């Protein structure tokens, strides 16, 4: 079901771990549904003097596809300017991995979300202008987080009730 590239990016992950005092940190996903990605980056300057993503790392709780897509987005974003990094799409990740099974496509969305959230985190903390598109995607992610919380709140309570009942 997975391409060799996906398996390679899963089994030999690079650039994982934490960055101390990151310039940007994006946290997306939910352990209830199965995937959590945290993405850290630090900025630096390239030879031309442009500000670029110099160091970038991920931490992921999730399946083969989640780990592979995290690893890939980190690869794709490294060395890019913020503007360029924001252009990375889920299609780019899927293409770079040689494809993903349909039920795993959401992992590529999560990877893009992790990066854009990290960039949003950087921009907002440095009081920099936030592109409209980014603002929109951030709002969408926040909204989804709330939905998941609510959706699973009722589910968790019913399961808990069932469990307590059995314990009595």
């Amino acid at each position: 079901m997975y391409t060799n590239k996906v398996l390679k990016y899963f089994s030999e992950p690079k650039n994982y771990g934490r960055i101390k005092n990151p310039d940007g940190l994006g946290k997306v996903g939910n352990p209830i549904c199965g995937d959590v990605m945290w993405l850290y980056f630090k900025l630096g300057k390239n030879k031309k003097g442009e500000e670029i993503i110099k160091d970038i790392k991920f931490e992921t709780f999730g399946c083969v596809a989640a780990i592979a897509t995290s690893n890939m987005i980190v690869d794709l974003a490294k060395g890019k300017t913020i503007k360029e990094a924001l252009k990375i799409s889920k299609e780019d990740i899927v293409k770079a991995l040689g494809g993903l099974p349909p039920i795993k496509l959401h992992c590529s969305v999560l990877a893009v979300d992790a990066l854009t959230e990290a960039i949003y985190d950087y921009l907002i903390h440095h009081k920099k202008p936030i592109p409209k598109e980014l603002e929109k995607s951030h709002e969408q992610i926040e909204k989804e987080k709330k939905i998941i919380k609510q959706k699973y709140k009722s589910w968790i309570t019913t399961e808990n009730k069932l469990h307590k009942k059995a314990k009595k």
Partner: protein
Amino acid sequence: MTFGVKIKKFKLTNAFLTMNKNIIYFDYAATTPLDSRVLKKMNPYLKEKFGNPGSSHSLGQQAKSDLEKSKEIISQIIKAEPEEIIFTGSATESNNLALKGIAFLNFQKKKHIIVSAIEHDSILKPTQWLASQGWKITKLAVDKFGLIRTEDLEKAISKETVLVSIMHANNEIGTIEPIAEIGKICKRKNVLFHTDASQSFGKIPLDVKKMNIDLLTASSHKIYGPLGTGCLFIKKGVKIESLIHGGGQEFGLRSSTPNLPSIIGFAEAAKISQKSMIKESQRLIKLREKLIKGILKSIPRSRLNGHPKKRLFNNINFSFSFVEGEAIVAKLNAYGIAASTTSACASEKLEPSHVLLACGLKPQEAQGSLRISLGRWTKEKDIDFLFKVLPEIVKNLRKISPFKG
């Protein structure tokens, strides 16, 4: 699910796994390889003994007599009568026939069915559907080991109750339910009792009379028999509606030309399992206990799911905090080890196992589940190899995980 690692074709010999050095098979609860003795028995029925049991010529009559012999073999194992066995296409079909067949016949009289929260989908989905058609369904909760409480069952049975369906042994966590007690209660309360014994048939002694079982599901491919065959025991006198109408085979309860080669194989597989049951259970319990002890000791933040003692002799189910099951299975696969998980990521529904949740695990804990099921060709050295690789796999995945505990 495949992860792209090339695996040589299984050889259909008893020693197929040891001969195939590329794979260590720890997924016997999913399906089992065909035993070569079973294949040998089936062979003539795929070739010269091809008659239809419904034909009156000698080929047909021979087939009919062999079909009946198969029923006799299966019925003896569960202490039933041959005419109480209906061959079906799978355990899923048997479960559907039991639930819907009983429900349809009692329509407008009694409309309440009781199941447990940890049944297989082939029980839960039909009951969900029956609920949509107006039946009342009670799902009994389980304790942290996956055991139902018989007091709950007693309380749940009402005048409206027609059927109680509780599995013998759970497919994910291996917990064995107290079916003899359940049978007693059902008999006293005058409701029918069905048990899905797909995982236990051929592994645990069954006596439908002593256990007061009215209907029982069994499967062929879990006991080294061919795929595509299961059976349903229906106690004499229990009235049930057919789901498949046609030529009236299987006492009119399951029309279809019987799949004789597979049925012959099923009966042979059952015979072998029955004969070797005690020896095999003693051998595998030893290996199971060694594996459980070793893993719990060598991997921090690991837990055993299911009951420590009341469990199938071949089932092991762990949870590892901070990592996800599909990732573990993929890493094991790269070492040539076949195991399984019920994490959300590995399912089409993207929800973690209903069994582990019912046992009280938090969804995030249920994500890190790993089921290891042992079988006829599991060797001690397979377990030693697992000890070498699994702790390292979990450690490495935890390095990537944002949760460290």
